[in-house]
């Protein structure tokens, strides 16, 4: 792959001179409480964080520590119990269903552990599905080329391997040129070699489209490809560190 994550990160991380320095996400005091009967689960317990434009973040933490909950709220799939989530200055916490739908449609690309492809549509069509409702989409072919699947365009999900399916999911997520790309355990169901291919695709997308990318993972090795790493514990962010040196996905030890 002919790109250098190091230089890219420097360029992307620096706020543009003519743009106001506004984070893509500004999260503060976020809590999410689930009540089932008498039992109360604090999935998020006062989370503060910001994500900058073009940044690639990796979210780590033990199972049940609240990573997915945060990602879902930030992605407009769920609402917090209290606290504030601002996307480019717009508050998401109080948005209604219609506003959240529009937000997801216009700004967010999702990648999930189980791909969530539409089985009745081919790879090309799965991407076209999203491109059809975007205002300035890439062509589905270009999006698939970006993840190295130009030769698999007319295959149905049932005819693709897991890694290929996940790359279709990535192509689908980026075809709309989203502002943010949210990935919940994108390599969770894949072996290491396939996982690396998927991560490379994500890194390349982040580089070439400038989408702010957040990746949840249980694989601590993956932290090295990020600009920043957040570690979750019991519904809080226990630590946040900036990677001094990013490595290419292919160099990640699995």
């Amino acid at each position: 792959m002919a790109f250098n994550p190091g230089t890219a990160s420097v360029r992307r991380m620096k706020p543009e001179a003519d743009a106001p320095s506004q984070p893509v996400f500004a999260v503060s005091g976020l809590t999410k409480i689930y009540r089932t009967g008498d039992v109360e689960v604090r999935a998020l317990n006062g989370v503060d964080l910001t994500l900058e434009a073009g940044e690639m973040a990796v979210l780590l933490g033990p199972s049940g520590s609240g990573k997915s909950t945060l990602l879902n709220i930030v992605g407009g799939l769920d609402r917090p119990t209290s606290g504030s989530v601002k996307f480019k200055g717009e508050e998401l916490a109080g948005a209604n269903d219609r506003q959240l739908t529009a937000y997801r449609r216009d700004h967010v690309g999702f990648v999930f552990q189980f791909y969530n492809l539409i089985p009745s549509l081919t790879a090309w069509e799965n991407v076209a599905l999203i491109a059809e409702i975007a205002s300035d989409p890439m062509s589905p072919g270009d999006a698939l080329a970006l993840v190295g699947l130009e030769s698999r365009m007319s295959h149905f999900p049932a005819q693709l391997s897991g890694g290929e399916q996940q790359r279709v999911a990535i192509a689908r997520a980026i075809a709309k040129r989203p502002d943010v790309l949210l990935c919940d355990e994108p390599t969770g169901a894949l072996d290491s070699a396939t996982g690396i291919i998927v991560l490379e695709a994500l890194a390349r997308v982040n580089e070439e489209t400038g989408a702010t990318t957040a990746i949840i993972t249980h694989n601590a090795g993956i932290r090295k490809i990020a600009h920043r790493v957040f570690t979750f514990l019991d519904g809080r962010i226990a630590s946040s560190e900036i990677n001094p040196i990013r490595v290419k996905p292919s160099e990640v030890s699995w």
Partner: protein
Amino acid sequence: MTGLSMLDRKLVRDLARLWAQSLAVALVMACGVMTLILALGATRALEDTRAAFYDRTRFGQIFASATRAPESLKADIAAIDGVSAVATRVVNPVIIDITGMAEPATGMLISIPDQGEPAVNRLYLRSGRLPEPGRPDEATIIEAFAEAHGFRPGDTFDVLINGRKRHLSITGITLSPEYVYAIGPGDFVPDQKRFGVIHMHRSVLEGAYDMEGAFNDVSLTLSRNANTKEVIAQLDAILKPHGGAGAYDRTDHMSDAFLDSELTQLRAMAQVIPPIFLFISAFLVNMILTRLIALEREQIGLLKAVGYTNAAIAWHYAKLTLAISLVGVAIGAIAGTRLGHGMASLYGEFYSFPFLVFSQEPDLYVISMLVTFAAALAGATNAILGAVRLPPAVAMRPPAPTGYHSIFGGSSSGFRLPFSQLTIMALRHLVRWPVRTALTTLGTALPVALLITSLFAFDSIDHMIDTIWFRADRQDATLTFTAQRPEDAVRDVARLPGVLAAEPFRAEAATLRNGHRSRNIQIFASDPETDIGRVLDQDFGAIKLPPAGLLLSERLASHLDLKPGDQVDVELSDGQGRRVLVPLVGVTNSYVGLTANMSREALDRLSGQGVRISGARVIVDESRIRDLYEEVKRTPAIASVALQGVSRKRFQAVFEENIGISITIYVSLAVIITFGVIYNSARIQLSERARELASLRVFGFTNGEVSSVLLTELGVMVVLAQPLGWLIGRGFSELVAKGFENDLFRIPLIINPPTYAVSSLVVLGAALVSALIVRRRIDRLDLIRVLKTRD
């Protein structure tokens, strides 16, 4: 739920969870059970009551009339091989004058023996008593007529007997097996107010009609092994010299033929409608169970792994099926019984039986239940076998992903069809399950067909009314003389008050033959170019009657196997026994029975007795109709009067009243089927595609866009169902029209475009509502849960 086995607890929970879908199926089953109980129950009620009533009153099996036959012939008739009882009578039409009723009523005046009961066609005395000997003014009347006028024993009324007004006193109210369905001259439905049957002593009628020692009507009952045809032939031979008009058996007896046609319709209903519902419910059970078993695949694997037998698992799902069916049977049995009572009382209005009880014998319910269970289990079998065949190890793995075909997308290189990906999703899903799609489409087409089959009656009856009363028999009234008269009698008719125009006619009873085929019929003759009463050709145009030759209605021509150009062997029933070959010059269009027409000129020539007329058809000035009625009641020469205008209104009123009920029922049935099919289909789609649809929501598709996938899929099936429904509906209607057809009347098959449109709109509306109920569930999809799980 203590005491229930684990599987039974699961059953109860499944039912609770699937209650809406189960109820939708149960309702479709209920319709099947209801229509089955209704049709079988009503059939039995009518059949049993009829048999019991006929038996008790010794209803005749052979009937004949003559002009005047000596009573001595009775012995000859009784001696015919196979005859077990003979009753001779004096029977004449009369005009009845009821105070307070402007229009004249007509009736039949029938003799009963002065002593004892008649051997055939006994009366069933509802109240009062029979006339006493030596009381010539005493009479009984039939119940329907009595009720219509509020008559009770002791009341009096006037009749015109052979031109003389007589004041009669009612001694009793009766029922007669000959007039279970009592229909007056020119009427299409019973008009209880305008048609009465009066019974008086034979000696009184013999005196009044100058029939001492003679009879003009005879009824026979036969012994068990009698040869009906042979008896008819011998009876005809005996009566021929006395103006015998040809004997006939019960099939041609007006009242019994109407009862028979009702029974035919009921039997057809029992054979056609319940199977439709049972077929659809079998399909719905199959759809629900297949999905349930697919969802419970892993549970089934687990149950098998821990040692549950295949039989136990099959029985578990069979019980679920039976539980749903039981609900359907219960609802259907209650509804069927209630509707059955309604139907019996409706019959009570038209058919005069001493009693008419809707049959509620237990076997009826047992049959309905077994049939429903069988249909449901037949639908379930395939799905249950699938569960039985699942090896436990395979069952615990998720099913292989569903493969699809790349149709509707166009080629990936360049050319693409103008469908959005959402539409493609919908269409591919349809094609992926072709059998289900076809059956769902058929299931939606059937209610359309059912509606057309019930609504087409409007079009056909409208057409019939137009044809009969506005194109053919356009007279306001038909006056029939007591005896045939010279041609100038029509001028007397024209001079009656209010009569604007009068056309003479001549009617002669005759036997038409062709080889071994024969029919007794009235030949009706009028002037070649009439304006009031007309004979219609196949295109409903008026036919100019030719100076020679015979015209037969299509049905009569086919009965006799004759086509235009053939010779018809005609014998008038004038006792002369002359047989003449007359050419068949045309086939006419008639909705009322078997008709034969000639020009008067031709009939006069055929009879060889000069120019005679039997009566006249008249157009009446509406404002002076009461004067005409008054005059008719006072005119001795008029034996009978048929009021076509009144008949038409009565027919329309009865039709509209009854069709309203049946349309309500059919629309309800159609809505229930549509709901059952569409609601279940949508629920199952939603269940199969919840994950896909939730994913779409995650990607930012709106509820409306996501619903469109579901609605497109349903929409395609519902739209395809319409032309299919029209076709099937037309086929059903044709069967119904054919089933109605008998020698008394037939219903033309007319289906106007609005009937198709209304049928479709009802089903489209019901489908839309069903789909929208399911659509609301899309708004409540749990977006996050689907992301955490695999399919």
